[in-house]
């Protein structure tokens, strides 16, 4: 079965402005050679901290940004602009800001119907019925159609945004920090809903998040980004049993689950370096407790540790021991 | 910082140049100037001779080239009305305009800024409403109406101040108040909004939380931040002061540049109009330049930009 999404060798470089009259303009390498696949009915979690490039990857997958290098295949065919309207519908995005995603001056019903009208799906009454059906699918009553975005809660808004996306029957859903701004109890509902939708509709789900616990719950496979590079990729258990030092630090930095249980913390000194001047060799070496000479000089390639698990580090064997 | 200023200066010069160019072509393309100057009875031959003398029958690009070249030698042409050098004609009126403009600016600042701050600090209460009501009144009132009212009261009734003319401080008072109230009103509203916005910021809360004295919070934390948008507004207003006092100048017989401009446009006194446009454009641009520089001085985010972790 063709995977719903095949992202291969994605890179994005932004050109800065020239400093002074001479000299090269600085290049910001936001994403560097990122590859992953998503099968139908599978959720892939893209995790990392701010500035790691995960949102940029999301934008390249949804064709909002053109990759500097690499390709995006949706259902086996290239997904780039320009593309016919119908193809556009195959990938939908849900963002963190629920208020910003909805027009405050239009009723919810109108906003649900709008994409259907743009894509020429159905007719007047038919669209209304379809919108109501989608609302039911996300667990909202039909009377929400008459309301306005500010009149409903954050969790309900996120469901509405989902209903709007589902109206176009997409094949791939990209969630960019979609639950990060929600309360824990509401987050649980939305996560459950996403899980259900993914399974029922056999959607591919690209779940971008900084929250490892949510990703562990929802996603079958996970990729960890650091300064634009994929440092580890594999099934969800890599969060519990990480191979790469950065993944270990991320997982270890999570506050304890139970009181008194000290974090199995690996102290990461310093902060994320600026992507404008990335470190030489392995991007993580300045903060890595295991860094050696080769780490400072040569950027490690992603090495497969077994069939479905890879990590980009020179010293994997020594660290695991 | 120097680089910053130099770039702005360069852009400013280009803009002024563009302004004069547009003005030049618009004046000549919107109707024959000579026709405008003379009534219909004047024979065509006289007009033709006039055109020849002024060089107005030459192709436009040639006229333009001559004009640009003469600018560099400081010659803006002669006033069609009295044959005097156009630059001099305008220069004569500049002191009066500057005096009025300066007085208006200072008056507006002295009234508008404190008013705005007081309104913001007492937001929602009686004081706020009173001050803002006054501000709206100030800028909604047409200035010829206010001017005439002031004349009726202070000149006619009380015989305290002269109703028109130029020369002493007493002559300055009424025109300055007329224009100043409008600008003060606008300024007060602007200052209020800006101060309110800053007051709502977490760093002001934090400063208050540290129990710093109110005055210190206001002067050290609120004002420098609130000043930034207000400065843009002031720059804009400053630029307008040069040519925008036409009505007031008419009401009070104030010999300023604004009045000269309308007269010259009506009479198609091309040279004088060009000089005044140049002056207004230059002032506007200079004001904006000063604002940009002030920004950089006040706000380190603009000075250094971006993050330097």
């Amino acid at each position, binding site marked *: 079965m063709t995977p719903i999404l095949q992202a291969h060798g994605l890179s994005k470089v932004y050109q800065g402005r020239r400093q002074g009259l001479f000299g090269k303009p600085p290049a910001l390498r936001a994403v560097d050679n990122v590859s992953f696949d998503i099968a139908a009915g599978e959720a892939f979690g893209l995790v990392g901290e701010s500035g790691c490039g995960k949102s940029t990857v999301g934008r390249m997958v949804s064709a909002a940004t053109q990759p500097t290098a690499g390709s995006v295949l949706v259902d086996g065919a290239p997904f780039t602009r320009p593309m016919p309207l119908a193809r556009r519908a195959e990938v939908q995005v849900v963002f963190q800001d629920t208020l910003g995603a909805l027009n405050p001056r239009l009723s919810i019903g109108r906003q649900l119907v709008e994409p259907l009208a743009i894509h020429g799906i159905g007719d007047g009454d038919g669209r209304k019925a379809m919108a109501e059906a989608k609302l039911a699918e996300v667990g909202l009553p039909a009377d929400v159609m008459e309301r306005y975005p500010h009149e409903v809660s954050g969790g309900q808004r996120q469901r509405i945004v989902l209903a709007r996306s589902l109206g176009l029957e997409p094949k791939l859903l990209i969630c960019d920090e979609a639950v990060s701004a929600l309360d824990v*109890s509401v987050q649980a509902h939305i996560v459950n809903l996403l899980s259900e939708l993914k399974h029922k509709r056999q959607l591919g789900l690209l779940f971008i998040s900084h929250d490892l616990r949510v990703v562990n719950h*929802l996603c079958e496979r996970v990729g960890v980004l650091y300064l634009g590079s994929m440092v580890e990729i594999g099934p969800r258990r890599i969060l519990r049993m990480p191979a790469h030092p950065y993944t270990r630090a991320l997982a270890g930095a999570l506050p304890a689950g139970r009181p008194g249980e000290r974090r199995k*913390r690996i102290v990461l000194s310093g902060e994320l370096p600026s992507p404008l001047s990335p470190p030489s060799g392995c991007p993580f070496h300045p903060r890595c407790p295991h860094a050696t000479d080769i780490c400072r000089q040569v950027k490690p390639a992603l090495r497969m540790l077994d069939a479905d698990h890879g990590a980009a580090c020179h010293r994997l064997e020594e660290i695991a021991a | 910082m120097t680089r910053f200023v130099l770039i702005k200066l360069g852009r400013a010069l280009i803009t002024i140049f563009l302004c004069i160019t547009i003005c030049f072509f618009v004046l000549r393309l919107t109707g024959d100037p000579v026709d405008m100057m003379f009534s219909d009875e004047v024979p065509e031959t006289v007009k033709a001779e006039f055109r020849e003398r002024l060089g107005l029958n030459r192709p436009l690009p040639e006229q333009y080239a001559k004009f640009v070249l003469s600018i560099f030698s400081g010659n803006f042409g002669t006033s069609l009305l009295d044959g005097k050098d156009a630059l001099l004609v305008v220069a004569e009126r500049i002191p009066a305009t500057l005096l009025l403009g300066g007085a208006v600016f200072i008056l507006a600042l002295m009234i508008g800024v404190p008013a705005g701050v007081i309104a913001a600090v007492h937001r929602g209460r009686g004081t706020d409403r009173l001050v803002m009501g006054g501000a709206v009144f100030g800028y909604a009132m047409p200035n010829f109406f206010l001017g005439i009212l002031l004349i009726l009261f202070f000149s006619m009734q009380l015989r305290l101040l002269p109703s028109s003319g130029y020369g002493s401080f007493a002559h300055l008072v009424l025109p300055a108040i007329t224009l100043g109230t409008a600008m003060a009103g606008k300024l007060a509203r602007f200052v209020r909004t800006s101060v309110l916005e800053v007051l709502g910021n977490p760093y002001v809360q934090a400063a208050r939380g540290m129990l710093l004295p109110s005055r210190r919070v206001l002067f050290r934390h609120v004002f420098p931040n609130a000043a930034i948008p207000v400065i843009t507004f002031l720059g804009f207003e400053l630029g307008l002061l040069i040519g925008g006092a036409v009505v007031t100048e008419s009401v009070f017989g104030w010999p300023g540049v604004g009045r000269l401009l309308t007269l010259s446009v009506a009479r198609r006194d091309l040279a004088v109009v060009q000089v005044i446009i140049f002056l207004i454009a230059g002032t506007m641009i200079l004001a904006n330049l000063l604002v940009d520089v002030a920004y950089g001085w006040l706000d380190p985010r603009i000075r250094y930009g971006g993050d330097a972790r």
Partner: protein
Amino acid sequence: MHADGETILAVTDLCVDVGGRRAIDGVSFSLGKGQTFCLVGESGCGKSLTCRAILGQLPPDIRQVGGTVTLSAAQPGRPRKAPRIAMIYQDSTASLNPVLKVGEQIAEPLRVHFGLSEQAAQKEAMRLIDAVGIADAKRRYHAYPHELSGGTNQRIAIARALACRAEVLLADEPTTALDVTVQAQILDLLAEVQREAGLSVLLVTHDLGVVAEIASDMAVMYAGRIVESGPVSRLFDAPSHPYTEALLACLPTLGEVEGPLAAIPGVVPPLGRRPDGCGFAPRCPRGRDICRAERPPLAGIAGGALVVCHFPLTGAVQ
């Protein structure tokens, strides 16, 4: 309410109205000297508002209409005007004045409240910048907030609180906006600063993980009221209130995935539409008629916990 050690901050029956509607309804808890106490709850429960009420910094249309906030007696010799409570905020960069150097902002309370000269204040500020773990303190003194990252600015905010020589530190979601690795560093810093400066910390958060990590005691807020309070270990191991239990149960973990998350049905009631009885009753799996009708009583539970519920999960001890 506080068993061992002295109480430094006591909040008793605090009631706050927002636009005429009750937002905080009779909240009571106390903070012991040198203790870390967490106020936990979801958005809209009133925890941030409680902080502002403690500081006495309520916005214009919000008023404290009942209850008291008392600090224990001050140390003699302490400058009267120096703040005894300092606060750090969720958005650390926004809590710093953008047009002033960060070092100057730390030096400010030293000069204003403690009368230090400009040089002395600068020296002390640099020492504090170093003490909160920022490298190259001398140079960083002259930096502006927008030049520094969120994590660094939060350290600066902590340094500023230390400069006030405050006894109580209020922290309103101090790590929520930060990356998880930086969050860990800041939590460590807070613990260290508390030990060394003897600070008492009241931390407001929605993240139960942070609570487990750093706090010894906690109170859970729901819809403007405290539903349960007590030692953190007790509440995590054996919650007495159905809301606390539900909250703990709906958290995702890094462990094996066993079916959907146990989400709480319904939504938090908005202001003005809070039930007469127990606020949680409409969503509570154990809710009965009396819960909707009458406000539940306060009951003590073994292990030093207090719960406000008609049918607490563990037996009540009177």
